[in-house]
């Protein structure tokens, strides 16, 4: 499956981080630009603290199926660093682009002390080694500074736009935000997008 035919984006994180909303927002932005977009996702009990992942598949030619074949990811947009490594395991390849939040969400088995969360510097090294291009940011910290972790996914989508690995600009995002939210809330989301863009601009 070549890059021109279909762009495969994996949006991943843990339950409750806003993964589903992020992938739908992303797909809507592409549909608005005339692309075909398909999303495959799961929700329900698996969401309660579990590893969650959505597949967003964008094409100019035709709608693709809801799941990406193994090794065929083009972009990983990750809300949690350990989850980035999990997704690379199934969908990575040497040219994949990764935009990853670096703030861990600790699994309950590391909260209890049974297993240690992997060393963050090593996590970042492995992500760099296993991807073609890499952008890291602490989207959670940015959203906390803005007053609400609910904004984490808007920060991430800003970082995606800044990376320019997909056909998505800040003005596309402004358009879809204004369509989805009103007044102050739209403005807060637009600010979150800008903060995300700045965070990966270096």
């Amino acid at each position, binding site marked *: 499956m070549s890059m021109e035919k279909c762009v495969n984006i994996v949006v991943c994180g843990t339950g409750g981080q806003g993964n589903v909303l992020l992938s739908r927002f992303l797909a809507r932005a592409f549909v608005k630009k005339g692309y075909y977009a398909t999303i495959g996702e799961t929700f329900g009990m698996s969401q309660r603290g579990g590893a969650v992942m959505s597949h967003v598949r964008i094409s100019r030619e035709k709608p693709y199926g809801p799941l990406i074949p*193994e090794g065929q990811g083009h972009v990983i947009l990750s809300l949690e660093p350990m989850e980035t*490594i999990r997704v690379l395991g199934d969908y990575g390849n040497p040219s994949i682009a990764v935009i990853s939040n670096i703030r861990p969400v600790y699994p309950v088995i590391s909260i209890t002390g049974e297993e240690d969360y992997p060393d963050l510097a090593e996590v970042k090294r492995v992500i760099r080694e296993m991807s073609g291009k890499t952008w890291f940011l602490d989207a959670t910290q940015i959203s906390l500074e803005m007053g609400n972790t609910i904004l984490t996914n808007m920060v991430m989508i800003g970082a995606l736009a800044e990376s320019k690995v997909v056909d998505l600009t800040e003005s596309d995002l402004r358009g879809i935000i204004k369509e989805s939210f009103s007044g102050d809330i739209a403005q807060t989301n637009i600010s979150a997008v800008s903060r995300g863009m700045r965070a990966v601009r270096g």
Partner: protein
Amino acid sequence: MAQVKEKTRMVDIASNAPGEVLLALGNEAIARGCMEAGVKVAAAYPGTPSSEILQTLSKAAKELGMYTQWSTNEIVAIEVATAASMAGLRAVTAMKAQGLNVALDFFLHLNLLGTRGGLVGVVCDDPQGWSSVNEQDSRWLIGRMADFPLLEPSSAQEAKDMAKWAFELSEEIESTVFIRSVTRISHGSGAITLGEMNGVSRTARFDRSFSPNPVPQKHAELKEKQRKARAMFEASPFNWYKGPESPRLIVVCSGTGWPFTVDALEALGLEDSVGVIKLGTTWPLPIEFILNNIRNNAPILIIEEVDPFIEVHLKEELYNRRNDNEFQKVYGKNTGHVNEVGELDPNKVINSIVGLMGTEYRSRDSDYNEKARKYAQDMTLPRPPIWCAGCPHRASLWALKHALRLDGMEGYATGDIGCYALDRYYGGWQLTRTQSCMGGGSGLASGFGKLQQFGFNQKVIANCGDSTFFHAAIPALINAVHHRADTTFLILDNSATGMTGFQPHPGTLLDAMGDPAVPVDIERLCRSLGCKVEVADPFDWEDAQEKLWNLIQQDGAKVMVMRRKCALLAAREDGPEYSVWVDPDKCIGEDCGCDRYCTRIFKCPGLIWDKGSEKAKVDEAVCAGCGFCVNICPQGAIVREKIS
């Protein structure tokens, strides 16, 4: 005077805007198809992955002149929808696979009843059991057992188109028509092109000449309806052939089998040598259409979700028509060429085709593959599902844990379907030892409670949620009260159907359409049965634990209601109640002797162990601010401050 700017409404799923393109969930697309068909009544009980169908219809109900309800359970829902059909209106019900089992008694008679207004049932199966207790393939019940016509969409667009057409088919043959979706269709999203809304308007009226008897005559009519449906399916636009004139292999597929097969053939570069028969109508099987498209006498591979349903029925048809010296080769789940458990995905389909075609396929560089797999294995931890930060179930089960420990007689809980079942997993304390179906824990408890004469002396607690209580636990509670079964019913009332997305239920103040409803009072209902009832806020830790302990010491059937709003709802509606932190001067880490009680035992994801300082810490990005954990630290190191 300022010029009034005309408010332009964004096109949404309920807009009468033919030709507009929208991104929609499969379930939203099904709801849209119902709207376009002019559906008037919709009733359902929530269940993943089906809930968004009624949710979407409910949001649009007032604008489109529909009536929708979240019914008490699935059998009531199918009866409510059938009543509308009997009165001449178009109606729909939607459920998860296990919901069909709840509705089965009525469902297996509905086929003989026939319909007046178009009646459509949607059953959303959950291959892989992502949010279900099994991988039920409902096609056996719908098709083989009940003889209902069955449609299986392969995309969001098709889900919409099929839902719309299903009403026409239903009225044409006077039978309920079922749509079988699966998680990857219902919870997948795709672009859909909106169609016209059917403005059909009818007055509801029941025809008193209606009769469900005699049974053999009705059964004969049902068989005739099947023949009519088959004839229509033979020419259905939901079935097609795509591929070369002389294929080396033919894939017959339905549902997700279609997109996965197309993607697999593209990945393998085999589009010119493999043909695909895509079926959207799978019962009765359009056999002439299939036979006409089996070209080149090529072998057949069947790709379908869960069970070999098309596979066995196609083989049956081929056997009936066999030429004495020629058998078509049919491969699938029964021959070991397709996974017989778990959901389909493009890789499994690629492997099935590669196996039959004898071709080679490598998805990525093999060194990379090895490394990526190894890193994923070595550096990722499993994430078993746990209660959210601030979940009242954690506090309720914490009270039960202590009550059972005080009792010391190896007591246990029989569980039910809902978030409280997470007690069975790593994040809970495994007090809950059974989980089967809606209301199953309550029925089991009413049985365990009668075993004393055989030496049984353990305390049994049936836990179930508020929505589950109304759905299926009431008959079991009555059974326990009437027969003096020694058991305690622990009703975890979080004011919503929590796991499926906070739908209202008979105990809530508003109904599906947002109108005021009569809230059925759980404790008054239970008291009226004659059993002792206690109510507590699980966050009022001492009161909750004491009441529960006292109750389980008493004979007979008792009810304990733990009432506290779902943490996700509370976050949405009220925001955090406290700011919470760990006082680093008071937390003395490993020197305390508590052995990290807060993180090792309590296991709220908002509390973490900071390896650097060797002390507990609140994860500010996760903590919901419920403040319950101040009760658990022996040093009083966890501090909360009310947020004004």
